[in-house]
């Protein structure tokens, strides 16, 4: 026998893992080397002894008993609620700050308008877009619309 590499090559030959050219080399080497032939015989016998061994192994439980545990686990996994979407603290803070800032701006604008000349200015809430505020100054012809952006549901999805 040559070396460990040659032994592994012999094994690869047995397992059909060698390219054709190398397989031919090994075949001609085997014809001349009795030790290699002996080793190949041993490897073959071991392989042959294992044939069908695992097919004789049987589950030592009845079908019903075995399945019942699998079924319970499947049902318990299916019954678990989906993990909640994690909303970051930044998103939560922004969700609070947006309407608060809008409210503060409207109050400020109203206060300024009142100081400048009474009922010529006003703030209103849009019904079409929840959370939207509109400020109008009739004297100067100015209209300010504050829209909450992004929409809260989009925010929740994004985070």
């Amino acid at each position, binding site marked *: 026998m040559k070396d*460990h590499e040659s*032994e*592994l090559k012999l*094994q*690869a030959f047995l*397992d059909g*893992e060698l390219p054709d050219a190398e397989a031919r080399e090994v075949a001609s080497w085997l014809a001349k080397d009795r*030790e290699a032939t*002996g*080793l190949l*015989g*041993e*490897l073959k*016998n*071991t*392989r*042959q*002894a*294992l*044939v069908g*061994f*695992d*097919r*004789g*192994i*049987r*589950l*030592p*439980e009845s*079908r019903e008993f*075995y*399945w019942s*545990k*699998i*079924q319970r*686990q*499947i049902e318990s*996994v299916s019954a678990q609620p989906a993990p909640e979407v994690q909303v970051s603290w930044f998103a939560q803070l922004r969700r609070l700050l947006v309407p608060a800032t809008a409210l503060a701006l409207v109050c400020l604008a109203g206060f300024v308008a009142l100081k400048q000349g009474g009922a010529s200015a006003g703030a209103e809430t849009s019904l079409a877009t929840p959370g939207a505020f509109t400020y109008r100054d009739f004297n100067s012809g100015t209209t300010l619309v504050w829209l909450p952006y992004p929409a809260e549901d989009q925010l929740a999805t994004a985070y």
Partner: protein
Amino acid sequence: MIESHYSSAGDEALVRASQQGEMVAFEELVARHRDKIYARAYTIMRSEEEAIDLSQEAWVKGWQKLAQFHGESSFGTWMTRIVINLCLDQLRKQKRHRTESVEAIAEDSGGIERQMPVVIVNPTAGLERVELRQRIDQALGQLSYEHRTVLVLHEFDDLEYKEIARVMGCSIGTVMSRLFYARRRLAALLVDLKKDSK
């Protein structure tokens, strides 16, 4: 009536029905392949209890991943891969290899098995089927899990060297060395068992 319908259906039809959420169809698949899946877990783990638990876990995982099965291999083969991965994960967790490091070093250096005399006479020749099974079972139990697993994947699952290397997370050279060592050691163990029985 549904059950009898499923018992005559092919695996492909059962898989499709299971993918639609039909648990009765999945139960039929479990019944058909349970021995094979258990056998694979047992040959790797060498413990009935662990093999039962891991094979059941594999079935639960299989159910959860059914949508990912597109028939590239047979259903049985697909399930076998799942149970093999679970077994290997379990063995890594247990870190059994720590206690087998001496054997691993010997195998990696191509040492011990090179000194073993070649077994010329087939040590299993003439044995009755039951006795042969017992001896192989005993011998497999004396191999380290790395050697046994390589042997099992190659001999029972017909995996090529490169596939075994991928599953076990090692090089092809390591697979070849381990397989060679495992075979030679198994042959020597079978000879010892034959002597003991006389």
